[in-house]
């Protein structure tokens, strides 16, 4: 009986795709697929020109890749890496965020100051939302009601109603905001500023900045500290911020928003993704052409895995 139960559990927790890791290689024009358990490279697959933003549907059936130089989003079967279809994205899509339900997809168009909203089922553009200059970072509230876009040159986080597609608030943050990340309970919004070198902690209810996290790494010149990607554990306890050419990931106490440690990863650390169980955090290192694997509980780098040329984005398949 016990054996059968174990078998049934194994079967339930190991579908074909469990914990596969997908890394977009901006210069290699491909995606490297890793096994999230063994950390071995499964394969490398062409995905169009200059792939950057990458995400996966909640059911794990569709992998979305911003093919920036093709001016569209390419959709792949994550299991076979065959292209299924494309989605219109507007010019130069860089980063996007998927509604928690899996539809629609909100895409930042860096060149024409728009956020394009695309229906992932009908493949139609639902809206084009004018935002600030050089829109870049995209985030969405856990309840799916608010989409955040950051504009690099206007230096704002725009709060967008995900249904009416109207901007209802703007928050001025530090120079060149790159990424927006909500805590899982929706009580905090973190916005990273690449040039400003800070992370703004915003209260989403009042749209006020409640704190600014700054970084100071012994032996590293301040201009090398460029916060980009950010991820927070679902219990809100640990926030990780990728610091670009400082080659470090900051570990931040999610309760106090104080920096606890800086982990040396690879060069030009850019975006990050957790495994579904949050055991590991993967970081893309654009200049050392590898992925660092961080043990989340131990707060240690456990491995670096060579991937393709200039890794940019990363997503892990859901369970």
């Amino acid at each position, binding site marked *: 009986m016990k054996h059968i139960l174990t078998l049934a559990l194994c079967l339930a927790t190991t579908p074909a795709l469990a914990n596969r890791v997908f890394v977009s290689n901006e210069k290699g024009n491909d995606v490297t697929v890793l096994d999230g358990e063994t950390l071995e490279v499964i394969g490398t697959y062409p995905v169009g020109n200059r792939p950057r933003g990458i995400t996966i549907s909640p059911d794990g059936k569709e992998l979305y890749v911003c093919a920036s130089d093709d001016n569209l989003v390419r959709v792949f079967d994550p299991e076979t890496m065959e292209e299924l279809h494309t989605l219109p994205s507007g010019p130069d899509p860089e980063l996007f965020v998927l509604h928690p339900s899996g539809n629609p997809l909100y895409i930042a168009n860096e060149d024409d100051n728009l956020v394009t909203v695309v229906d992932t089922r009908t493949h139609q553009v639902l809206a084009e939302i004018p935002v600030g200059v050089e829109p870049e970072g995209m985030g969405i509230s856990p309840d799916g009601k608010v989409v955040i876009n950051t504009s690099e040159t206007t230096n704002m986080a725009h709060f967008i109603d995900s249904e009416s597609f109207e901007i209802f608030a703007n928050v001025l943050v530090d120079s060149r905001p790159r990424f927006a990340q909500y805590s899982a309970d929706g009580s905090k919004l973190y916005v990273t500023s690449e040039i400003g070198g800070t992370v703004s902690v915003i209260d989403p209810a009042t749209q006020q900045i409640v704190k600014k996290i700054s970084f100071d*790494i012994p032996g*590293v*010149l301040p201009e*090398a500290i460029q916060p980009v990607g950010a991820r927070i554990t679902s219990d809100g306890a640990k926030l990780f911020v990728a610091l670009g050419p400082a080659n470090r990931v900051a570990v931040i106490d999610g309760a106090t928003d104080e920096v606890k440690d800086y982990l040396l990863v690879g*060069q030009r650390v850019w975006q990050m993704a957790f495994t579904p169980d949050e055991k590991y955090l993967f970081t893309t290192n654009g*200049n*050392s052409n590898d992925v660092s694997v961080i043990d989340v509980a131990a707060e240690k780098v456990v491995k670096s895995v060579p991937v393709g040329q200039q890794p940019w984005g990363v997503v892990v398949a859901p369970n």
Partner: protein
Amino acid sequence: MRSVLTLILALAAGPALAANGTDPDWPCIQRKQPHLSLGQIWSGPAPDEAIGDLAREPAIAALAERLEQRRLPVEEAEADIAAFAETADNARLTALMVAVFDRIEPERSALIAGIARYGQKQVELAQMIEDRRAKMAALEAAAEPDFDAIDSEEAALDWDQRIFTERQQSLTYVCETPVILEQRAFALARAIAGHLE
């Protein structure tokens, strides 16, 4: 003609892009980082004065000299580091790191300065092309055009445009060179750090 104009416009836009808190003369898409810092590649012991002295020891200096050469494949460099590490403690490993860094960093800084000069020269050349073009227009608009002068101006303009375009095409590679040095420094640091106790 049109493509040169586009290039000139692109060049004019380049420094504006880079101007985000950086040097307006910087021609690369990559943000200008005049200096590397040791902490970007090293999380081992922080070097103190004693380690600085150790880094000047002939055996360590000679190894650093060898490791820094880009023609030495990384695999061979790693093997050299492993051999050194057999008898080296953390202080000596850190000293080797300092010695390597003190060689790569000035080389990279010199490169960065060179790229800035390259960018300035392109801006000057773009201005010269504009001036020549204005002169051509004036010569052509004359009541009795001096065709010899127009021909010579046209030939000079062709050359300037060709040089400008070729230099512009090399810019992507030129801008990549500091990254190549950073990659080398990082790979060596990782190899050295791997032997820390």
